[in-house]
């Protein structure tokens, strides 16, 4: 039989990749002595919180290596399917590969099983990828600490999750943050949610956008690895919203006008 048609159908997409030798599996070698303790600063800031219209997810655009700015147009908020977003903090090579595997896993599941993967299944799929990647993390390379948001159709609500590098998943009640700038934005979000005019989940889309941009501005001011706004280069943070209608991305013009008036 033709080698490209396998005799047994695969259970899921990572299994397909593994069979073809394409899965980015870690080589579980002994940790390098110099980097036995994984570097816990994942130079970036990503944040997400629930507001009246769903979940807003935002990320800065800077990619760094040590003290060098490598790239100022990185996209850290990635669309995984029609209703799911993943924001990434950590090593870009691993994170983008993970996003790619995840995207293909959901589609593969839908196409082969003839139904959407359940919410729990999706959340768990990312957890499993992180767990598979832990060999890299222990070698001091390839750490990824993502945030995941998706729309829960049966419950008619947007849901938000954050993870640790080993793959533990936590559902966030109101907000989630990750990356080196996260202590700063976490304080901002806590303060706004608890002591602000209204809790985050009661805020309008416009208020949510302003808050996200102000929080990122705070992070950029306090953390060298988080990029601010380059108004001359017209480089703005990436903001995306998960709602019942799917995913929407805020355009640069809207962000520019919010910046002029409110940030």
């Amino acid at each position, binding site marked *: *039989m033709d080698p490209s*048609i396998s005799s047994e159908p695969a259970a899921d997409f990572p299994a397909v990749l593994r069979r073809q030798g*394409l899965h980015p599996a870690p080589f579980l070698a002994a940790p390098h002595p110099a980097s036995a303790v994984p570097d816990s600063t994942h130079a970036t800031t990503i944040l997400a919180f629930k507001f009246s219209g769903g979940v807003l997810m935002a990320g800065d655009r800077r990619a760094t290596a040590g003290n060098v700015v490598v790239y100022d147009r990185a996209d850290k908020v990635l669309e995984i399917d029609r209703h799911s977003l993943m924001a990434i903090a950590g090593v870009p090579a691993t994170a983008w590969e993970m996003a790619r595997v995840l995207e*293909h896993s959901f589609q593969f599941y839908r*196409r*082969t099983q*003839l139904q959407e993967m359940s919410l729990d299944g999706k959340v768990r799929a990312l957890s499993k990828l992180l767990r598979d990647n832990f060999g890299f993390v222990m070698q001091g390379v390839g750490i990824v600490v993502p945030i995941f948001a998706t729309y829960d159709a049966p419950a008619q609500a947007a849901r938000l999750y954050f993870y640790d590098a080993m793959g533990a998943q936590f559902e966030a009640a109101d907000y989630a943050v990750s990356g080196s700038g996260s202590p700063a934005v976490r304080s901002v979000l806590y303060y706004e949610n608890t002591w602000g005019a209204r809790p985050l989940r009661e805020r309008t889309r416009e208020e949510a956008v302003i808050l996200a941009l102000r929080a990122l501005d705070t992070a950029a001011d306090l953390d060298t690895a988080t990029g601010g706004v380059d108004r001359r280069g017209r480089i703005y943070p990436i903001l995306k919203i998960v709602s019942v209608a799917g995913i929407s991305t805020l355009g640069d013009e809207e962000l520019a006008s919010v910046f002029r008036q409110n940030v």
Partner: protein
Amino acid sequence: MIEEPYRWVEAIANRREYIEHQLAGGSPLVALTYQGGILFLTLSRERQKIFEIYDRIAMGAIGHPGDIERLRMAAIEVASTEGFTRSSQDVSLRRLAAFSLSPALKAAFEQVYGPPYLVRMLFAELGEPNLFYRIDYDGSIHTNGGAQLRTFEHFGVISGTPLSAAAMTRHLSGANHAGLPLPEALRVAVDAWTVGRLAREGDEGPFPPEKIQSARAEHLKDFVIEAAVLEKDAPQAAAYRVLPPREIEDAIGNPS
């Protein structure tokens, strides 16, 4: 006995006869180009027959459910692996059909000690131009000629019998449906299906509109329309969408 060449030819001929007999009851299946992309349609009573394969590729099939499922999974795996390692644009129906499916089908068909696949499949790929591939149980491929960037037909059909498929082809060849909006394309597809169904029952035609009309009304009582589209202006990469019953009823009219 199979070691002798003429015995082998005989065995293959028997096998072909057997498979054709098995497939003869298959419900016709139509795919055609319309204004917004490609429409797949069939009428059935039990099993799903139209499936998404990849971002711009879909398939319909008749035959043994186990064999259809096996080949469907294989097609999705091949396309997904290609799309993952390269990109969505690198997934091509031509390659999927000619490189992956056809050799496997041919091998299974001609190795007379093993079981053949009892299937007849219709694949379509959204593109410029839209491609329609009919792949048979013996690995043979019939296309609408898109390889030379020139298409001879804006549709593809499969059916249980060659006569039925030929009648549908004649029916659809009469006009170019590529500019029709979806509701009208749905009506054209149901008519083509009806012609295919009548021909499969032994009706040799001709098929004037009144005859199609009454046969269609009769069939809609007993069958359910299954339809899906590959939309060229889909907001996301995956162009496949199953048409919900309401959208079909609005175009065709409720049978009850």
